[in-house]
Protein backbone atom coordinates (compact mmCIF):
# COMPACT_ATOMS: atom_id res chain seq x y z
CA UNK A 1 0.00 0.00 0.00
CA UNK A 2 2.73 2.42 1.00
CA UNK A 3 4.71 1.67 -2.15
CA UNK A 4 1.79 2.47 -4.42
CA UNK A 5 1.02 5.70 -2.66
CA UNK A 6 4.61 6.91 -2.94
CA UNK A 7 4.57 6.26 -6.68
CA UNK A 8 1.36 8.16 -7.17
CA UNK A 9 2.86 11.07 -5.32
CA UNK A 10 0.72 11.09 -2.19
CA UNK A 11 1.69 9.95 1.25
CA UNK A 12 -0.88 8.94 3.88
CA UNK A 13 -1.30 11.77 6.31
CA UNK A 14 -2.75 10.06 9.35
CA UNK A 15 0.61 9.91 11.14
CA UNK A 16 0.41 13.60 11.93
CA UNK A 17 -2.59 15.25 13.56
CA UNK A 18 -4.95 16.42 10.84
CA UNK A 19 -5.54 19.83 12.38
CA UNK A 20 -1.85 20.69 12.12
CA UNK A 21 -1.53 19.87 8.44
CA UNK A 22 -3.21 22.82 6.71
CA UNK A 23 -1.29 25.39 8.76
CA UNK A 24 1.96 23.46 8.28
CA UNK A 25 1.40 23.33 4.55
CA UNK A 26 0.73 27.05 4.48
CA UNK A 27 3.82 27.80 6.54
CA UNK A 28 6.08 25.88 4.17
CA UNK A 29 4.62 26.93 0.81
CA UNK A 30 3.50 30.51 1.43
CA UNK A 31 6.91 32.23 1.27
CA UNK A 32 7.67 30.70 -2.16
CA UNK A 33 4.18 31.39 -3.54
CA UNK A 34 4.01 34.97 -2.28
CA UNK A 35 7.45 35.64 -3.74
CA UNK A 36 6.39 34.25 -7.13
CA UNK A 37 3.13 36.19 -7.16
CA UNK A 38 4.91 39.47 -6.41
CA UNK A 39 7.72 39.00 -8.91
CA UNK A 40 5.78 37.45 -11.82
CA UNK A 41 2.04 38.16 -11.54
CA UNK A 42 2.20 41.76 -10.33
CA UNK A 43 4.35 42.86 -13.30
CA UNK A 44 1.96 40.99 -15.57
CA UNK A 45 -0.95 43.05 -14.23
CA UNK A 46 1.13 46.19 -14.72
CA UNK A 47 1.78 45.17 -18.35
CA UNK A 48 -1.97 44.94 -18.88
CA UNK A 49 -2.50 48.30 -17.18
CA UNK A 50 0.26 50.01 -19.22
CA UNK A 51 -1.11 48.54 -22.44
CA UNK A 52 -4.28 50.59 -21.88
CA UNK A 53 -2.35 53.87 -21.65
CA UNK A 54 -0.83 56.39 -24.00
CA UNK A 55 2.54 56.69 -22.32
CA UNK A 56 5.86 57.65 -23.83
CA UNK A 57 8.64 58.20 -21.31
CA UNK A 58 9.98 61.02 -23.49
CA UNK A 59 6.63 62.85 -23.23
CA UNK A 60 5.35 61.87 -19.77
CA UNK A 61 2.97 64.85 -19.60
CA UNK A 62 0.85 63.33 -22.39
CA UNK A 63 0.26 60.14 -20.40
CA UNK A 64 -3.38 59.10 -20.33
CA UNK A 65 -5.88 56.25 -20.45
CA UNK A 66 -6.74 55.21 -24.03
CA UNK A 67 -8.59 51.95 -23.45
CA UNK A 68 -7.82 49.28 -26.04
CA UNK A 69 -6.49 51.75 -28.65
CA UNK A 70 -2.91 50.46 -28.49
CA UNK A 71 -3.92 46.99 -29.65
CA UNK A 72 -5.29 47.84 -33.14
CA UNK A 73 -2.57 50.48 -33.49
CA UNK A 74 0.10 47.81 -33.14
CA UNK A 75 -1.65 45.58 -35.67
CA UNK A 76 -1.88 48.39 -38.23
CA UNK A 77 1.87 48.78 -38.38
CA UNK A 78 3.26 46.74 -41.26
CA UNK A 79 6.51 46.26 -39.32
CA UNK A 80 4.62 44.34 -36.63
CA UNK A 81 3.63 41.66 -39.14
CA UNK A 82 7.21 41.40 -40.39
CA UNK A 83 8.26 40.91 -36.78
CA UNK A 84 5.65 38.19 -36.26
CA UNK A 85 6.73 36.47 -39.48
CA UNK A 86 10.39 36.63 -38.40
CA UNK A 87 9.51 35.20 -34.99
CA UNK A 88 7.61 32.29 -36.55
CA UNK A 89 10.30 31.62 -39.18
CA UNK A 90 13.04 31.63 -36.57
CA UNK A 91 11.18 29.49 -34.05
CA UNK A 92 9.85 26.88 -36.46
CA UNK A 93 13.10 26.54 -38.43
CA UNK A 94 15.16 26.10 -35.30
CA UNK A 95 12.75 23.60 -33.76
CA UNK A 96 12.50 21.47 -36.92
CA UNK A 97 16.23 21.49 -37.70
CA UNK A 98 17.28 20.74 -34.12
CA UNK A 99 14.71 17.95 -33.94
CA UNK A 100 16.17 16.24 -37.03
CA UNK A 101 19.80 16.80 -36.02
CA UNK A 102 19.10 15.89 -32.40
CA UNK A 103 17.40 12.67 -33.49
CA UNK A 104 20.32 11.68 -35.73
CA UNK A 105 22.83 12.36 -32.95
CA UNK A 106 20.74 10.58 -30.32
CA UNK A 107 20.46 7.48 -32.53
CA UNK A 108 24.21 7.58 -33.19
CA UNK A 109 24.98 7.94 -29.49
CA UNK A 110 22.61 5.16 -28.48
CA UNK A 111 25.25 2.58 -29.50
CA UNK A 112 28.39 1.32 -27.88
CA UNK A 113 31.58 2.66 -29.44
CA UNK A 114 34.97 3.82 -28.16
CA UNK A 115 34.97 7.28 -26.54
CA UNK A 116 31.21 7.51 -26.15
CA UNK A 117 31.40 9.44 -22.86
CA UNK A 118 33.80 12.04 -24.25
CA UNK A 119 31.77 12.42 -27.45
CA UNK A 120 28.60 13.02 -25.45
CA UNK A 121 30.38 15.56 -23.26
CA UNK A 122 31.71 17.41 -26.30
CA UNK A 123 28.30 17.43 -27.96
CA UNK A 124 26.46 19.00 -25.02
CA UNK A 125 29.01 21.80 -24.65
CA UNK A 126 27.40 24.32 -27.07
CA UNK A 127 24.29 24.27 -24.89
CA UNK A 128 26.29 25.21 -21.78
CA UNK A 129 27.95 28.19 -23.41
CA UNK A 130 26.58 31.62 -22.62
CA UNK A 131 24.41 32.80 -25.56
CA UNK A 132 26.29 36.09 -25.81
CA UNK A 133 29.59 34.20 -26.07
CA UNK A 134 28.17 31.95 -28.81
CA UNK A 135 26.95 35.00 -30.66
CA UNK A 136 30.23 36.95 -30.36
CA UNK A 137 32.18 33.85 -31.39
CA UNK A 138 30.08 33.08 -34.46
CA UNK A 139 29.78 36.70 -35.54
CA UNK A 140 33.50 37.41 -35.50
CA UNK A 141 35.61 34.29 -35.59
CA UNK A 142 33.35 32.23 -37.88
CA UNK A 143 31.12 34.49 -39.99
CA UNK A 144 33.45 37.46 -40.53
CA UNK A 145 33.77 37.70 -44.34
CA UNK A 146 37.39 38.91 -44.44
CA UNK A 147 39.05 36.83 -41.73
CA UNK A 148 36.46 34.33 -40.45
CA UNK A 149 36.98 30.59 -40.45
CA UNK A 150 34.05 29.86 -42.78
CA UNK A 151 35.28 32.45 -45.25
CA UNK A 152 38.79 30.97 -45.10
CA UNK A 153 37.41 27.49 -45.72
CA UNK A 154 35.62 28.78 -48.82
CA UNK A 155 38.74 30.60 -49.98
CA UNK A 156 40.88 27.48 -49.54
CA UNK A 157 38.38 25.62 -51.71
CA UNK A 158 38.78 28.30 -54.36
CA UNK A 159 35.33 29.81 -53.81
CA UNK A 160 34.46 33.45 -53.05
CA UNK A 161 34.19 34.29 -49.34
CA UNK A 162 30.50 34.52 -48.36
CA UNK A 163 29.23 37.33 -46.12
CA UNK A 164 26.46 35.32 -44.48
CA UNK A 165 25.55 37.90 -41.84
CA UNK A 166 25.09 40.63 -44.47
CA UNK A 167 23.35 38.63 -47.19
CA UNK A 168 21.42 35.95 -45.30
CA UNK A 169 21.15 37.38 -41.77
CA UNK A 170 18.19 35.21 -40.76
CA UNK A 171 19.99 32.05 -41.85
CA UNK A 172 23.05 33.15 -39.86
CA UNK A 173 20.95 33.66 -36.73
CA UNK A 174 19.24 30.31 -37.27
CA UNK A 175 22.61 28.54 -37.63
CA UNK A 176 23.82 29.98 -34.32
CA UNK A 177 20.67 29.03 -32.40
CA UNK A 178 20.51 25.57 -33.98
CA UNK A 179 24.10 25.04 -32.86
CA UNK A 180 23.15 26.01 -29.30
CA UNK A 181 19.95 23.95 -29.08
CA UNK A 182 20.77 20.71 -30.93
CA UNK A 183 22.41 19.29 -27.76
CA UNK A 184 19.19 19.91 -25.82
CA UNK A 185 17.14 17.85 -28.29
CA UNK A 186 19.81 15.18 -28.40
CA UNK A 187 19.95 14.83 -24.61
CA UNK A 188 16.21 14.39 -24.18
CA UNK A 189 15.78 12.05 -27.16
CA UNK A 190 18.75 10.02 -25.95
CA UNK A 191 17.09 9.68 -22.54
CA UNK A 192 13.98 8.47 -24.40
CA UNK A 193 15.94 5.95 -26.47
CA UNK A 194 17.65 4.60 -23.38
CA UNK A 195 14.28 3.97 -21.72
CA UNK A 196 13.16 1.88 -24.72
CA UNK A 197 12.77 -1.84 -24.10
CA UNK A 198 15.33 -3.34 -26.49
CA UNK A 199 13.57 -6.73 -26.38
CA UNK A 200 10.71 -5.21 -28.38
CA UNK A 201 13.15 -4.09 -31.08
CA UNK A 202 14.79 -7.52 -31.15
CA UNK A 203 11.42 -9.28 -31.31
CA UNK A 204 10.44 -7.07 -34.25
CA UNK A 205 13.74 -7.86 -35.99
CA UNK A 206 13.13 -11.58 -35.56
CA UNK A 207 9.69 -11.07 -37.08
CA UNK A 208 11.44 -9.61 -40.11
CA UNK A 209 10.80 -5.88 -39.62
CA UNK A 210 13.31 -3.63 -41.38
CA UNK A 211 14.95 -0.58 -39.85
CA UNK A 212 12.44 1.89 -41.28
CA UNK A 213 9.51 -0.13 -39.91
CA UNK A 214 11.15 -0.33 -36.49
CA UNK A 215 11.77 3.42 -36.57
CA UNK A 216 8.18 4.23 -37.56
CA UNK A 217 6.26 1.74 -35.48
CA UNK A 218 8.37 1.28 -32.36
CA UNK A 219 10.82 4.15 -31.95
CA UNK A 220 8.64 7.11 -32.93
CA UNK A 221 5.56 6.11 -30.87
CA UNK A 222 7.80 5.47 -27.87
CA UNK A 223 9.68 8.74 -28.33
CA UNK A 224 6.55 10.85 -28.95
CA UNK A 225 6.27 11.89 -25.31
CA UNK A 226 9.91 12.98 -25.25
CA UNK A 227 9.65 14.79 -28.58
CA UNK A 228 6.57 16.63 -27.37
CA UNK A 229 8.27 17.70 -24.16
CA UNK A 230 11.52 18.75 -25.83
CA UNK A 231 9.78 20.70 -28.61
CA UNK A 232 7.49 22.48 -26.14
CA UNK A 233 10.33 23.56 -23.88
CA UNK A 234 12.57 24.58 -26.75
CA UNK A 235 9.82 26.53 -28.50
CA UNK A 236 9.20 28.64 -25.40
CA UNK A 237 12.88 29.49 -25.11
CA UNK A 238 13.36 30.22 -28.84
CA UNK A 239 10.30 32.50 -28.89
CA UNK A 240 12.17 34.68 -26.39
CA UNK A 241 15.57 34.68 -28.09
CA UNK A 242 17.24 38.05 -27.62
CA UNK A 243 20.99 37.97 -26.93
CA UNK A 244 21.98 36.23 -30.17
CA UNK A 245 20.07 38.79 -32.26
CA UNK A 246 21.25 41.78 -30.25
CA UNK A 247 24.89 40.77 -30.60
CA UNK A 248 24.98 39.60 -34.22
CA UNK A 249 22.55 41.68 -36.29
CA UNK A 250 20.87 44.13 -33.88
CA UNK A 251 17.66 43.07 -35.56
CA UNK A 252 18.81 44.21 -39.01
CA UNK A 253 19.49 44.92 -41.73
CA UNK A 254 16.34 47.02 -41.36
CA UNK A 255 14.13 44.73 -39.34
CA UNK A 256 14.98 41.55 -41.24
CA UNK A 257 15.99 39.65 -38.11
CA UNK A 258 13.87 41.47 -35.52
CA UNK A 259 11.76 39.01 -33.55
CA UNK A 260 9.10 39.88 -30.98
CA UNK A 261 11.57 40.05 -28.08
CA UNK A 262 13.84 42.39 -29.94
CA UNK A 263 10.95 44.41 -31.37
CA UNK A 264 9.51 44.99 -27.92
CA UNK A 265 12.94 45.95 -26.62
CA UNK A 266 13.24 48.59 -29.39
CA UNK A 267 9.72 49.88 -28.75
CA UNK A 268 10.23 50.13 -24.99
CA UNK A 269 13.87 51.11 -24.57
CA UNK A 270 14.75 52.92 -27.80
CA UNK A 271 11.45 54.66 -28.58
CA UNK A 272 10.35 54.65 -24.92
CA UNK A 273 6.75 53.94 -25.94
CA UNK A 274 5.62 52.09 -22.83
CA UNK A 275 1.97 51.78 -23.90
CA UNK A 276 2.68 50.28 -27.29
CA UNK A 277 5.49 48.04 -26.00
CA UNK A 278 3.16 46.66 -23.33
CA UNK A 279 0.47 45.92 -25.93
CA UNK A 280 3.12 44.05 -27.95
CA UNK A 281 4.07 42.21 -24.75
CA UNK A 282 0.47 41.04 -24.37
CA UNK A 283 0.54 39.84 -27.99
CA UNK A 284 3.77 37.96 -27.24
CA UNK A 285 2.10 36.17 -24.34
CA UNK A 286 -0.91 35.32 -26.52
CA UNK A 287 1.34 34.08 -29.35
CA UNK A 288 3.28 31.85 -26.93
CA UNK A 289 0.05 30.29 -25.72
CA UNK A 290 -1.45 29.87 -29.21
CA UNK A 291 1.70 28.20 -30.52
CA UNK A 292 1.68 25.84 -27.58
CA UNK A 293 -1.97 24.86 -27.93
CA UNK A 294 -1.77 24.38 -31.72
CA UNK A 295 1.40 22.41 -31.40
CA UNK A 296 0.06 20.08 -28.73
CA UNK A 297 -3.01 19.37 -30.91
CA UNK A 298 -0.93 18.60 -34.00
CA UNK A 299 1.33 16.34 -32.04
CA UNK A 300 -1.48 14.47 -30.31
CA UNK A 301 -3.14 13.79 -33.66
CA UNK A 302 0.13 12.58 -35.19
CA UNK A 303 0.69 10.41 -32.17
CA UNK A 304 -2.73 8.73 -32.47
CA UNK A 305 -2.24 8.07 -36.18
CA UNK A 306 1.24 6.74 -35.59
CA UNK A 307 -0.08 4.16 -33.19
CA UNK A 308 -3.07 3.01 -35.26
CA UNK A 309 -1.36 2.58 -38.65
Amino acid at each position, binding site marked *: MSQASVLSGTVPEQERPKSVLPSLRRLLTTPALVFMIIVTQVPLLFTIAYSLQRWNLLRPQRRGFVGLDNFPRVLQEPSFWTIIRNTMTLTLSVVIITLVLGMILAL*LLNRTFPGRGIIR*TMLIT*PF*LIMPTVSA*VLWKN*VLFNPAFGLIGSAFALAGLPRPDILAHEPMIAVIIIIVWEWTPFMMLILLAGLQSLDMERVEAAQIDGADLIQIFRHILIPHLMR*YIELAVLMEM*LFILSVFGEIFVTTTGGPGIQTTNLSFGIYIEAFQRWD*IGQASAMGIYA*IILANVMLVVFIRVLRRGQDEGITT
Partner: protein
Amino acid sequence: MLRNRTVGNGLTFLTYLLTFIIFFPIFWMVLTSFKTEAVAFDYPPKLVFTPTLSNWNIALFETGFFKSLRNTLLIVAGSTSLALILGIPAAYALAYYPGKRADFTLTWLISTRMLPPVGVIVPLFIIFRDTGLRDTHLGMIIIYCAMNLPLVVWMMRSFFLDVPYEILEAGRIDGVSLWQEFRFIAIPLVTPGLFATALLCMIFSWNEFFFAFNLTVTDAAPLSVYISSFKTAEGLFWAKMSAGATAAVLPVVIAGWFAQRQLVKGLTMGAVK
Protein backbone atom coordinates in the same frame (compact mmCIF):
# COMPACT_ATOMS: atom_id res chain seq x y z
CA MET B 1 28.41 -10.24 -40.07
CA LEU B 2 31.23 -8.49 -41.92
CA ARG B 3 28.70 -6.13 -43.45
CA ASN B 4 27.30 -5.33 -39.99
CA ARG B 5 30.74 -4.45 -38.71
CA THR B 6 31.44 -2.19 -41.68
CA VAL B 7 28.15 -0.37 -41.14
CA GLY B 8 28.97 -0.06 -37.44
CA ASN B 9 32.39 1.42 -38.14
CA GLY B 10 30.83 3.78 -40.64
CA LEU B 11 28.31 5.00 -38.06
CA THR B 12 31.04 5.46 -35.47
CA PHE B 13 33.08 7.47 -37.97
CA LEU B 14 30.01 9.60 -38.76
CA THR B 15 29.54 10.24 -35.02
CA TYR B 16 33.14 11.40 -34.67
CA LEU B 17 32.83 13.59 -37.76
CA LEU B 18 29.63 15.32 -36.58
CA THR B 19 31.10 15.82 -33.10
CA PHE B 20 34.22 17.33 -34.66
CA ILE B 21 32.13 19.80 -36.68
CA ILE B 22 29.90 20.77 -33.74
CA PHE B 23 32.74 21.13 -31.25
CA PHE B 24 35.14 22.87 -33.61
CA PRO B 25 33.97 26.47 -32.94
CA ILE B 26 34.65 25.98 -29.21
CA PHE B 27 38.03 24.39 -29.88
CA TRP B 28 38.86 27.28 -32.21
CA MET B 29 37.85 29.87 -29.60
CA VAL B 30 40.15 28.31 -27.00
CA LEU B 31 42.95 28.03 -29.55
CA THR B 32 42.54 31.66 -30.68
CA SER B 33 42.81 32.85 -27.08
CA PHE B 34 46.43 31.62 -27.01
CA LYS B 35 47.40 33.36 -30.26
CA THR B 36 48.78 36.83 -30.78
CA GLU B 37 46.33 39.19 -32.49
CA ALA B 38 48.44 38.99 -35.67
CA VAL B 39 48.37 35.18 -35.75
CA ALA B 40 44.60 35.21 -35.06
CA PHE B 41 44.09 36.92 -38.42
CA ASP B 42 46.48 34.74 -40.41
CA TYR B 43 45.41 33.20 -43.67
CA PRO B 44 45.30 30.27 -44.02
CA PRO B 45 44.23 29.88 -40.37
CA LYS B 46 47.02 28.45 -38.22
CA LEU B 47 46.65 25.29 -36.15
CA VAL B 48 50.27 25.24 -34.99
CA PHE B 49 51.81 28.37 -33.49
CA THR B 50 53.77 29.53 -30.46
CA PRO B 51 51.15 29.93 -27.72
CA THR B 52 51.12 33.10 -25.66
CA LEU B 53 49.28 34.05 -22.48
CA SER B 54 49.55 37.77 -23.19
CA ASN B 55 45.93 38.11 -24.32
CA TRP B 56 44.67 36.22 -21.29
CA ASN B 57 46.59 38.73 -19.22
CA ILE B 58 45.00 41.66 -21.00
CA ALA B 59 41.50 40.14 -21.08
CA LEU B 60 41.48 39.28 -17.39
CA PHE B 61 43.47 42.06 -15.76
CA GLU B 62 43.27 45.13 -17.99
CA THR B 63 39.53 45.17 -18.63
CA GLY B 64 36.34 45.10 -16.60
CA PHE B 65 36.40 41.30 -16.53
CA PHE B 66 36.88 40.81 -12.80
CA LYS B 67 34.29 43.38 -11.87
CA SER B 68 31.74 41.56 -14.05
CA LEU B 69 32.87 38.20 -12.71
CA ARG B 70 32.35 39.48 -9.17
CA ASN B 71 28.85 40.69 -10.10
CA THR B 72 28.02 37.35 -11.71
CA LEU B 73 29.27 35.43 -8.68
CA LEU B 74 27.31 37.58 -6.22
CA ILE B 75 24.11 37.39 -8.26
CA VAL B 76 24.40 33.66 -8.99
CA ALA B 77 25.22 32.74 -5.39
CA GLY B 78 22.54 35.02 -3.96
CA SER B 79 19.76 33.97 -6.31
CA THR B 80 20.56 30.26 -6.04
CA SER B 81 20.61 30.37 -2.23
CA LEU B 82 17.37 32.33 -2.06
CA ALA B 83 15.66 29.97 -4.53
CA LEU B 84 16.74 26.96 -2.47
CA ILE B 85 15.68 28.53 0.84
CA LEU B 86 12.23 29.37 -0.51
CA GLY B 87 11.84 26.35 -2.76
CA ILE B 88 12.94 23.38 -0.63
CA PRO B 89 10.32 23.78 2.14
CA ALA B 90 7.62 24.24 -0.49
CA ALA B 91 8.81 21.16 -2.39
CA TYR B 92 8.86 19.22 0.87
CA ALA B 93 5.28 20.15 1.71
CA LEU B 94 4.10 19.47 -1.84
CA ALA B 95 5.77 16.04 -1.83
CA TYR B 96 4.81 14.74 1.62
CA TYR B 97 1.83 16.83 2.73
CA PRO B 98 0.02 17.77 -0.49
CA GLY B 99 -3.32 19.47 -0.08
CA LYS B 100 -6.18 19.62 -2.50
CA ARG B 101 -4.58 22.47 -4.42
CA ALA B 102 -1.13 20.88 -4.82
CA ASP B 103 -1.67 20.08 -8.51
CA PHE B 104 -2.88 23.59 -9.23
CA THR B 105 0.09 25.09 -7.38
CA LEU B 106 2.58 22.99 -9.35
CA THR B 107 0.96 23.78 -12.71
CA TRP B 108 0.81 27.46 -11.86
CA LEU B 109 4.50 27.46 -10.96
CA ILE B 110 5.36 25.96 -14.35
CA SER B 111 3.20 28.53 -16.12
CA THR B 112 5.24 31.34 -14.54
CA ARG B 113 8.38 29.75 -16.00
CA MET B 114 6.73 29.70 -19.45
CA LEU B 115 5.83 33.38 -19.37
CA PRO B 116 7.83 35.18 -22.12
CA PRO B 117 10.26 37.59 -20.39
CA VAL B 118 9.22 40.38 -22.79
CA GLY B 119 5.74 40.16 -21.31
CA VAL B 120 6.98 41.57 -17.99
CA ILE B 121 10.15 43.48 -18.83
CA VAL B 122 8.49 46.90 -19.23
CA PRO B 123 6.89 47.02 -15.75
CA LEU B 124 9.97 45.44 -14.17
CA PHE B 125 12.11 48.17 -15.70
CA ILE B 126 9.79 50.89 -14.37
CA ILE B 127 9.39 49.31 -10.94
CA PHE B 128 13.15 48.82 -10.66
CA ARG B 129 13.78 52.42 -11.74
CA ASP B 130 11.31 53.81 -9.21
CA THR B 131 12.43 51.64 -6.28
CA GLY B 132 16.17 52.00 -6.87
CA LEU B 133 16.56 48.27 -7.61
CA ARG B 134 17.86 48.99 -11.10
CA ASP B 135 21.54 48.13 -11.52
CA THR B 136 21.79 46.51 -8.07
CA HIS B 137 22.78 42.97 -7.13
CA LEU B 138 19.65 42.61 -5.03
CA GLY B 139 17.42 43.40 -8.02
CA MET B 140 19.07 40.74 -10.19
CA ILE B 141 19.00 38.24 -7.31
CA ILE B 142 15.23 38.71 -7.04
CA ILE B 143 14.69 38.23 -10.79
CA TYR B 144 16.89 35.13 -11.08
CA CYS B 145 15.37 33.65 -7.93
CA ALA B 146 11.93 33.95 -9.57
CA MET B 147 13.35 32.41 -12.75
CA ASN B 148 14.72 29.38 -10.88
CA LEU B 149 12.19 28.87 -8.09
CA PRO B 150 9.75 26.75 -10.18
CA LEU B 151 12.68 24.55 -11.20
CA VAL B 152 13.75 24.11 -7.57
CA VAL B 153 10.23 23.19 -6.42
CA TRP B 154 9.67 20.71 -9.25
CA MET B 155 13.03 19.04 -9.06
CA MET B 156 13.25 18.88 -5.27
CA ARG B 157 9.71 17.53 -5.08
CA SER B 158 10.62 14.71 -7.44
CA PHE B 159 13.73 13.94 -5.37
CA PHE B 160 11.70 13.92 -2.14
CA LEU B 161 9.20 11.54 -3.76
CA ASP B 162 12.07 9.18 -4.60
CA VAL B 163 12.83 8.69 -0.88
CA PRO B 164 11.50 5.23 0.09
CA TYR B 165 8.35 5.66 2.12
CA GLU B 166 9.38 3.00 4.65
CA ILE B 167 12.18 5.23 5.91
CA LEU B 168 9.83 8.13 6.60
CA GLU B 169 7.26 5.81 8.12
CA ALA B 170 9.83 4.30 10.50
CA GLY B 171 10.78 7.77 11.66
CA ARG B 172 7.18 8.79 12.23
CA ILE B 173 6.49 5.65 14.26
CA ASP B 174 9.49 6.57 16.40
CA GLY B 175 7.85 9.94 16.92
CA VAL B 176 10.36 12.30 15.28
CA SER B 177 9.27 15.90 14.96
CA LEU B 178 8.69 17.43 11.57
CA TRP B 179 11.95 19.36 11.78
CA GLN B 180 13.85 16.18 12.65
CA GLU B 181 12.20 14.32 9.79
CA PHE B 182 13.18 17.12 7.39
CA ARG B 183 16.68 17.76 8.66
CA PHE B 184 17.90 14.28 9.64
CA ILE B 185 15.94 11.91 7.40
CA ALA B 186 14.84 13.62 4.18
CA ILE B 187 17.63 16.15 3.50
CA PRO B 188 20.56 13.67 3.81
CA LEU B 189 18.77 11.36 1.37
CA VAL B 190 18.25 14.06 -1.26
CA THR B 191 21.68 15.73 -0.96
CA PRO B 192 22.88 14.59 -4.44
CA GLY B 193 19.65 15.93 -5.94
CA LEU B 194 20.08 19.14 -3.99
CA PHE B 195 23.52 19.70 -5.49
CA ALA B 196 22.23 18.95 -8.99
CA THR B 197 19.39 21.43 -8.54
CA ALA B 198 21.75 24.12 -7.25
CA LEU B 199 24.10 23.51 -10.16
CA LEU B 200 21.29 23.96 -12.70
CA CYS B 201 20.16 27.21 -11.05
CA MET B 202 23.73 28.43 -11.29
CA ILE B 203 24.02 27.51 -14.97
CA PHE B 204 20.77 29.28 -15.88
CA SER B 205 21.50 32.47 -13.96
CA TRP B 206 25.15 32.55 -15.04
CA ASN B 207 24.17 32.54 -18.73
CA GLU B 208 21.06 34.77 -18.62
CA PHE B 209 21.26 37.93 -20.72
CA PHE B 210 17.87 39.53 -21.41
CA PHE B 211 17.00 40.65 -17.86
CA ALA B 212 20.62 41.46 -17.04
CA PHE B 213 20.97 43.65 -20.11
CA ASN B 214 17.76 45.59 -19.51
CA LEU B 215 17.94 45.92 -15.72
CA THR B 216 21.63 46.68 -15.12
CA VAL B 217 23.93 49.46 -16.34
CA THR B 218 27.44 49.16 -14.89
CA ASP B 219 27.43 48.55 -11.13
CA ALA B 220 25.72 45.16 -11.27
CA ALA B 221 26.33 44.18 -14.91
CA PRO B 222 27.27 40.48 -15.03
CA LEU B 223 29.61 38.64 -17.43
CA SER B 224 26.94 38.01 -20.07
CA VAL B 225 26.52 41.77 -20.47
CA TYR B 226 30.27 42.39 -20.38
CA ILE B 227 30.81 39.86 -23.19
CA SER B 228 28.10 41.43 -25.33
CA SER B 229 30.21 44.62 -25.42
CA PHE B 230 32.57 42.74 -27.76
CA LYS B 231 29.94 42.86 -30.45
CA THR B 232 31.54 45.97 -31.91
CA ALA B 233 35.15 44.92 -31.34
CA GLU B 234 35.02 43.40 -34.79
CA GLY B 235 38.23 42.69 -36.57
CA LEU B 236 40.72 43.97 -34.04
CA PHE B 237 40.84 41.99 -30.82
CA TRP B 238 39.87 38.39 -31.53
CA ALA B 239 42.51 36.81 -29.31
CA LYS B 240 41.65 39.05 -26.38
CA MET B 241 37.94 38.50 -26.99
CA SER B 242 38.43 34.72 -27.17
CA ALA B 243 40.38 34.73 -23.91
CA GLY B 244 37.66 36.70 -22.11
CA ALA B 245 34.91 34.53 -23.60
CA THR B 246 36.69 31.30 -22.68
CA ALA B 247 37.18 32.49 -19.12
CA ALA B 248 33.54 33.56 -18.89
CA VAL B 249 32.13 30.18 -19.92
CA LEU B 250 34.69 27.89 -18.28
CA PRO B 251 33.08 27.49 -14.81
CA VAL B 252 29.65 26.71 -16.23
CA VAL B 253 30.93 24.35 -18.91
CA ILE B 254 32.84 22.35 -16.32
CA ALA B 255 29.86 22.34 -13.92
CA GLY B 256 27.62 21.19 -16.78
CA TRP B 257 29.97 18.37 -17.72
CA PHE B 258 29.77 17.05 -14.17
CA ALA B 259 26.00 17.48 -13.94
CA GLN B 260 25.28 15.82 -17.32
CA ARG B 261 22.96 13.21 -15.91
CA GLN B 262 20.90 15.70 -13.90
CA LEU B 263 20.85 18.15 -16.79
CA VAL B 264 18.09 16.25 -18.58
CA LYS B 265 15.97 16.06 -15.47
CA GLY B 266 16.42 19.76 -14.80
CA LEU B 267 15.73 20.86 -18.35
CA THR B 268 12.40 19.06 -18.35
CA MET B 269 11.39 20.08 -14.80
CA GLY B 270 11.93 16.50 -13.62
CA ALA B 271 9.62 14.99 -16.25
CA VAL B 272 12.41 12.91 -17.81
CA LYS B 273 14.81 11.11 -15.49
